[in-house]
């Protein structure tokens, strides 16, 4: 059983050192748009006061289609996009990270010219569906390595494998 998408909870925390055209201070009314694919996007409210160091602490819930490898984060000031960052899905999902694990991540924003324009701070959690079997609930300290998907449809069992 493979789902067509999972649900992720992104808390857009804050941004640092934003500028407009590298020189002017950002006046305000900045907001962040997160896109998981061209059809799925969500945005935060604006931060009127924060200027170059806005803070939103806003939680966005979105769908993450299973084929998506990157999600895009855009910083807007008024009607302009002043910076974007690309977040690989592997940074917060898959591999050994359990579901419902809260990852704190920060990324470099770059403007339209490719120049650096600050940093965006966020946290991401992949909402659990309860399907991952014993990896999330084992109390012994062994490392579960996900076995091949074709072994048993849907259930992932951790099997200790020689590590090198």
């Amino acid at each position, binding site marked *: 059983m493979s789902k067509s998408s999972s649900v992720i909870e992104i808390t857009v*925390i*804050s941004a*640092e050192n934003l500028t407009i055209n590298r020189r002017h*201070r950002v006046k305000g009314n900045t907001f962040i748009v997160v896109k998981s694919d061209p059809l799925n996007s969500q945005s935060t409210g604006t931060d009127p*006061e924060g*200027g*170059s*160091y806005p*803070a939103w602490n806003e939680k966005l819930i979105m769908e993450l289609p299973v084929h998506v490898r990157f999600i895009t984060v855009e910083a807007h000031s008024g009607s302009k996009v002043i910076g974007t*960052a*690309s977040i*690989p899905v592997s*940074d917060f999902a898959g*591999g*050994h*990270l*359990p579901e419902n*694990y*809260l*990852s*704190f*991540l*920060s*990324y*470099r924003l*770059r403007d339209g010219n490719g120049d650096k324009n600050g*940093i965006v*701070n966020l*946290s991401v959690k992949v909402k659990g569906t309860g399907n991952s079997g014993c*990896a*999330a*609930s*084992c*109390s*012994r*300290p*062994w*490392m*579960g390595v996900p076995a091949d998907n074709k072994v048993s449809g849907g259930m992932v069992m951790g099997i200790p494998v*020689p*590590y*090198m």
Partner: protein
Amino acid sequence: MGNCFSDVKGGQQAIGGSVRAGGGGHGGSAASGPNDAVDYFFRAKGEHALFMPIELSLSASKLRDRDITSKSDPMAVIFTKRRNGKLEEIGRTEVIMNSLDPSWIQKINVTYQFEIVQHLVFQVYDVDTKYHNLPVKMLNLEDQDFLGEASCVVSEIVTKRERSLTLNLHSRGRPGFKHLGTLTVRAEEPVASRNTVEITFRCSALENKDLLSKSDPFLRISRTVETGGSVPICKTEVVNNNLNPIWKPVQLTMQQFVSKENPLVIECFDFNDSGNHQLIGKLQKSVAELETLYQSKSGAKFISPSSGFRRHEKVLKSQIIVEVYVEKQLYSFLDYISSGFELNFMVAVDFTDRCFPAWGFGGRTPDCSVSHCFNLNGSPSEFEVEGVDGMMAAYTSALHNVALAGPTLFGQVINKAADIARGSVSCNYAKYYILLIITDGVVTDLQETMDSVVRASDLPLSILIVGVGNANFKEMEILDADNGRRLESSTGRIATRDIVQFVPMREVHGGEISVVRALLEELPSQFLSYVRSKDIKPLNMS
């Protein structure tokens, strides 16, 4: 006015009260790290920024009876043992009359420092009747009857679950077989240090002090002291060009404000690049009064103090409002480790230069491939060695099987440690990992290493790097982001927190501080920034 801001950007950052939750280091101020003016102020007074004050209570049982007509009148004294073996007294209890099983009330304060070994020696004396009217500190120990001695290390006490340790008392100098009774030491953190209060301040109608634009206000909060002056405890970040600013939340610990009734001085300044900040207004409120302001949703007016132009104070229209007021319990490092959190060490040894023995990356294994991360014990699947002896045995055997090969690469070792740390997270197990890298070469794959460190920065892992030998380690210091610059990977990801501590051995060789101490100093705060950001509580706490 006592300005000590060295650079504009640094000067604009919040100091002393930054909230450490939520990623530890987010939100504009890299100053949730330890380098700031207020921190130096406290250090100058002998208080280390991350010292953990604890109180020791003592009790004893089955003491020897030295008096003829009645029981002994015991008193206990605690000493620290200096490096040269000399004992230095740090405190004594009161005298309890007529008891061989005393429970002393007087507590003795000790500062627990994670990074050094603190030896304590306890001595129990029977105080002669003729001294019973003297204050305890005037008693001359040589005139009293010695009842027994015990010793231990502070960390032994605090890492026990009950934070209590029972020792056998023995005769001076050597642990004899005579049963002189037992001494129980219990450590407690003063309750005050766990209580914190998180306040979000907002101001309205601030006066304009700048000519061409609006004021750039920030707040400075100070605690009043008995001598009449005040000691700054924190300042907010600067909000530019705004007469109705709202600042990021400020977190004050009870250590900083001492009591909720203690009046705090809140001053609002207009930031100037020159360092000559102009006072917009000030007022005095205690934490309890700020709580009342919050609950009643009202503001308090600022006061402009008397100056040359005016002989009395003027009440301004500018107000301060408490937007958010939250009281929180902050678990300390000791809470976590005494509850059973494990700190796990992993060691990586440099094989690239024959000249520094005992210091396995950069080796060519029997199958002729160069490995930058091979198991020291030679096993293809098991990477663990047992204890220091196991390490030495593994190193010896590896020397026979592995040929030396450059260059010095860290990336793979760090990735391996990160995989282990990541694996433990999925099992909900209370473990924190520490990777110790000993190297005599400057890292050749700096970007790779930075990438690995950034990828590991959100995991329960700290990386301690010791540089031995004469190489120029300047580049390595970039990895240790103490100057506030967060590490950036080649894919555009920024480190969530600073997990690297780098110490060149040469630097500390001459000084008083040992390498181990310099390495371990940052560990408690790195550990706490991780557990607090993930809202992980000590084990068995509801």
